[in-house]
Each structure stands twice: as structure tokens, then as C-alpha cells.
């Protein structure tokens, strides 16, 4: 049976949903070709000190592949272009799959084209959808910065095709309803890669990965968000940012605040901005027009600070504070600072 590989990616700051999404998309394809395609996952990692099968579990919440290839090598401790290309070339030679899919992350877009060039694989980058029809691969991708979509056809030969899938296209798969009982555990095939340890190019030294400052975290990824609107005012955003930093939260804004240039436009939340799903959302001086609240429907805990008793935001909040956001934030900053000094 032909295999469809999903190459899993791990990296600081990379949400696990990206892998889930590709798995879900691939599973759909496998179901369409049931009996002819087999879903397999591929993980590249350093050998674990205590090798337990349990370590594989977090990847497969609702979608379980039938096979799980684990490639182990000390050089795969962290991402290197050479390491990924060498490891995957080795595995492709051992088990030639029909199709290889991975998320089009920064790293995915780093190794995948190189692997394709090295092995001469048919390669389609940044797909929004991919379908197999007999011996052709049909993909949908964006053109001209998303102004047009193009459908392409790639003939599959004896070599596997390689596809990168744009993250966020599908969204996080919700818990599968059709699934009855826990999915069967995948057959785990572990390889200690017989490659030379010098997979890192000596001319290239990877110093490390830096996390962004909490207030700079992209809103879609933020655990906590402090957002401000008209009631905060231009000057108030400095305090709001201080408060956010103390809380380890990202700064968001309503359209009023971004339109007036108090905050850059990529911080806008709502219908014409971003949709966010933080655990904590603090709306300061935001009345809660539907255009804004449409962007926060996934927020778990909402705190609203507003002087207007009738502001619709209070209907959505877990805690409502009736007062001027700036005043309250300023004092809350003092309280949090006193505490951090006290500790």
C-alpha cells in the first residue's frame, strides 16, 4: 500500500496545531483513497535518554497515523537544514512513499525545497489544498499575494511528491465526532540514523532561538491579551503596555485605536482585524461593538474595564469593572510592581 507521510515539525514557538492540521488534511485524503493509501507520520529527533513509547503520544490527539517513523540522531537535537535533508533522504530511500506533506513553516520552507532539489522530487510549495487523482497531484495555491488562486497538476513518477501546506488554512481540527473510542496506537518504527555526526555545516553556527517579548507576541498565539480602545487614549497605551508586560500579555487594540495611530494596525482585533483565542482577555476602554467582539469569541476569560454601565462588552465579561481604564491600570501596575518587589 502506498504511504502518505506527514513530517512533523517541532520548534520553540511553533504551535502543535500546525502538525495536527497537516495530519487532519492528510487523513482526509487517505479516507478518500481508503485501502490504497496509508497515513504515516515522521518525526526527527535526538535519541531520548529514557526511550519510552509514551513520548509519541502528544502528537496524536484525534488523528492517529497507521505508522509512525521515528528517526533518531544526536544531530537532530535541534533543527538544521542539513540534518533534516540528510535524514529524510535516507528514509525516502528506505521506504518510498507516494506523497510527503509538511507544514510550510519557516523551517519547512527551508528544508523542503532543498530536499526536492537534491533528490529531484516533484515539489509544490505553500499549498492550500492537495488531492491525489490516480497518478497526478492536484493542488490549490495562492498567487499574487492571495489575489488569485491557482490549481496545478503535477504528474507523479516513481519518486514521491513533496508538498508544503500553509499553516492556519484549515484551522485547528476540533475533536472528531465520528471517531468511536480511542484510535488504535500507530505502529512505531524507530531508526537510529546511520549518518555521520557532522550534519551541521561547519561554516554555519546556530546560536539559538529567541522568544519575542510578551507584548510583541503575535496576537493569534498569545495566551493573554490586554486590549485598549477609545477609552484608553493615546497616552494611556503606554500604561497599557506596561501592564501587559507585567502580566506577560500581548497588546491588542480596537479599530478606533489603530485607526488613530495609537497602536500599529496589526494589533487590531475584530472583524477587520484579527480573531484571537487567548485564555485571558482584558478589554480596556472598549465598549464592545459586534465588530470588535467577533474577534474575541474564542477568549476563555474576559475582563472588561469601562466607565459606561451599559457598554455591551459587560455582557460578555466574566468580570466587569466600572471605571476609567487608565486610572485603574495605573494603580494595578503599582500593585503588581509592589508585589514583584516584595517577593
Amino acid at each position, binding site marked *: 500500500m502506498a504511504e502518505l507521510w506527514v513530517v512533523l515539525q517541532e520548534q520553540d514557538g511553533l*504551535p502543535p496545531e500546525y502538525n495536527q492540521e497537516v495530519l487532519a488534511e492528510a487523513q482526509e485524503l487517505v479516507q478518500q483513497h481508503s485501502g490504497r493509501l496509508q497515513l504515516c507520520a515522521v518525526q526527527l529527533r535526538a535519541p531520548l535518554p529514557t526511550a519510552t513509547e509514551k513520548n509519541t503520544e502528544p502528537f496524536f490527539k484525534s488523528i492517529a497515523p497507521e505508522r509512525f517513523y521515528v528517526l533518531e540522531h544526536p544531530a537532530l537535537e535541534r533543527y538544521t537544514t542539513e540534518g533534516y535533508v540528510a535524514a529524510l533522504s535516507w528514509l525516502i530511500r528506505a521506504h518510498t512513499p507516494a506523497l510527503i506533506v509538511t507544514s510550510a513553516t519557516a523551517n519547512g520552507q527551508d528544508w523542503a525545497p532543498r530536499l526536492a532539489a537534491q533528490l*529531484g522530487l516533484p515539489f509544490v510549495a505553500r499549498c492550500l489544498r492537495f488531492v491525489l487523482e490516480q497518478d497526478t497531484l492536484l493542488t490549490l495555491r495562492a498567487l499574487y499575494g492571495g489575489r488569485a488562486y*491557482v490549481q496545478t497538476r503535477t504528474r507523479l513518477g516513481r*519518486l514521491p511528491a513533496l508538498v508544503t501546506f500553509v499553516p492556519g488554512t484549515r484551522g485547528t481540527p476540533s475533536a472528531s465526532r465520528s471517531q468511536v473510542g480511542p484510535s488504535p496506537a500507530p505502529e512505531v518504527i524507530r531508526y537510529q540514523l546511520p549518518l555521520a555526526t557532522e550534519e551541521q555545516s561547519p*561554516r554555519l553556527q546556530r546560536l539559538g532561538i*529567541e522568544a519575542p517579548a510578551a507584548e510583541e507576541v503575535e496576537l493569534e498565539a498569545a495566551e493573554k491579551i490586554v486590549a485598549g480602545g477609545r477609552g484608553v487614549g493615546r497616552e494611556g497605551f503606554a500604561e497599557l503596555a506596561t501592564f501587559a508586560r507585567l502580566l506577560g500579555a500581548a497588546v491588542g487594540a480596537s479599530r478606533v485605536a489603530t485607526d488613530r495611530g495609537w497602536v500599529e494596525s496589526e494589533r487590531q482585533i475584530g472583524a477587520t482585524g484579527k480573531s484571537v483565542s487567548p485564555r485571558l482577555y482584558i478589554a480596556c476602554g472598549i465598549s464592545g461593538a459586534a465588530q470588535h467582539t467577533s474577534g474575541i469569541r474564542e477568549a476563555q476569560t474576559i475582563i*472588561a474595564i469601562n466607565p459606561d454601565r451599559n457598554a455591551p462588552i459587560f*455582557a460578555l465579561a466574566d468580570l466587569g469593572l466600572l*471605571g476609567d481604564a487608565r486610572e485603574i491600570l495605573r494603580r494595578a501596575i503599582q500593585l503588581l510592581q509592589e508585589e514583584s518587589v516584595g517577593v
Partner: protein
Amino acid sequence: MRIAVCLKQAPDCSSVYVDPISGEVDTERFVQTLNAADACALEAALRLKEQLGAGSVFALTLGPGESEEVLRVALAMGADTIERLWHPSAADWGPLTIAAALAARLRADPSLPDLIFCGEQSSDWASGTVGPALAAYLGLPQITGVIGLEAHQDSGQLLLRVTRRLERGYRERLLARPPLLLTVHETLNEPRYPSLPAHLAALRATITVRDPLSLPQFAADFEAEETTIVEVRTPRPRPHRLPIPDSQLSPFERIGEIITGGTSRRQARLVEGSPEELAHELVRFLKERGFV
């Protein structure tokens, strides 16, 4: 220090018009420019050359006659030599074949350049493939998605401090020594405007054109590249499921629910008081829920 920069002429995205019914792209309206990321790659190369006070910048493109425009821009900005590759069949080439042609051209020189700069992706196809593929064909290490670049002299050798863009604001820091290939993100720098005299001089320059198929080391795997376009159409987003609004509600509220996508109402605890009291309440709540 010899630096090569690979450039592409691409339509400015804001000039792209797609007919919403037929899905036809109106190529007549295209405003062709130097691809934004490639302009940053060229700018990075020129700044490096200026900083080192020595070296040369070679700008290379693969494209039809019109794309000489980008080479003239490169020349006006400060490139030392320019060259265009073209063969009529190249209009159908995929990124891997294009990379193979560029690799063959760079191999045709007595030695490879010390540094190669490419744009991370083009504004039209945005497959981000040519850079890494070129590095693979030339056997060079690569760094993709560069958003920070500093050059230092380290005991007579050039040392590059590179910042790479990862997801969600994360950055990777690297140290690199040439030779290598860098693909540049369009936020790396602000490309310069060429001066008018330089621009006028560039208009008169003669441009060398080479046929990549005549290059000795051009061995493209055309078979791997059989990707053909089936259809181009206007974007249609994936459908998004919304909960059905409660029929008990007034039409106004139902419309509100459709717009908000059914944001759930909660039991708000409304607290009044002086700012001090409210700030205390806020901090207490945050602690109680474990956010602080």
C-alpha cells in the same frame, strides 16, 4: 569578496486584477517591478560591499527581454556587472529548473561567488524554492528568511551575524562564514533609490544575454517539474461554520449574533468603586484565576 544576487521581475501585487466571474488575470494591467524581497537582497549585497570597501556585486536574472528592466535598476543602484539568462522554453520552467539554470551560470565562472543573495519569495508564485534549490545544486549552506544581517571582520575573515525569521515573532540567531547562500525577507532593509544620473547611465548599458541550455553544467531534471496550471480563479475562502442564532431573540439580536459569530453571553460580575478598589479587585481576580 564576490557577491552574486539573483533577481526576478514580478508584477506589483496591487496591479493584479482578477476578473471575479471568469477568474481571468488581466496581465495587460501588470506593473512589472523588481520583486520586493529581491530588491532587499540587492540592497544587502550593496551595503556589504560598501562596508567592506572592496568586492563586486553581480546581478543575475532569468527572464524575457522585458526583465532587463530589473537589471538596469540593479545597475543604477550600484551592481557592478549584470547578466540575463533566457531561452524561449524557460517560460514554462518551474523553480527547480530555474535554480538549476542559475547554478549552471554561477558554475561557469572560474570560481563560485563568496556570497549569494536571493529574495526569500517572489510576489507572484511565492514558492520560496529557488534560493534553497540553488544552494543545494551548488552544495552551499543556506540561511532562509533573513531579517537581520551584520558583518564583522574576524581575524581577516568575514563573519556574518544573521537573524532568521521563525513563526510568531520567534527569531533564530546564527553565525556564518562565506561561502553560503542567504534568502532575504523583504523587511531586512529599505532599498535605496538610484540617482537620476545613475539611472540614465543604466538605460544605455548593454546587457549580456546567455542561453542557459548552452551552459555546460546545466542538467535540469525536467521530468520532476511537470507542474502545469489547470485553472486560475478568484480566491474563495473556506466556509466557516457559525452557530444558528436563537430564534427566540429579536431580529436585532439575531443579526448581532450572526455578526459576532455567536459570542456567548456570560454572567458578568459588575464591580463599582474607586480606582484603587477596582485595581485591587482586578489584581485579586487575576491571582484567583492563576494569571499572575
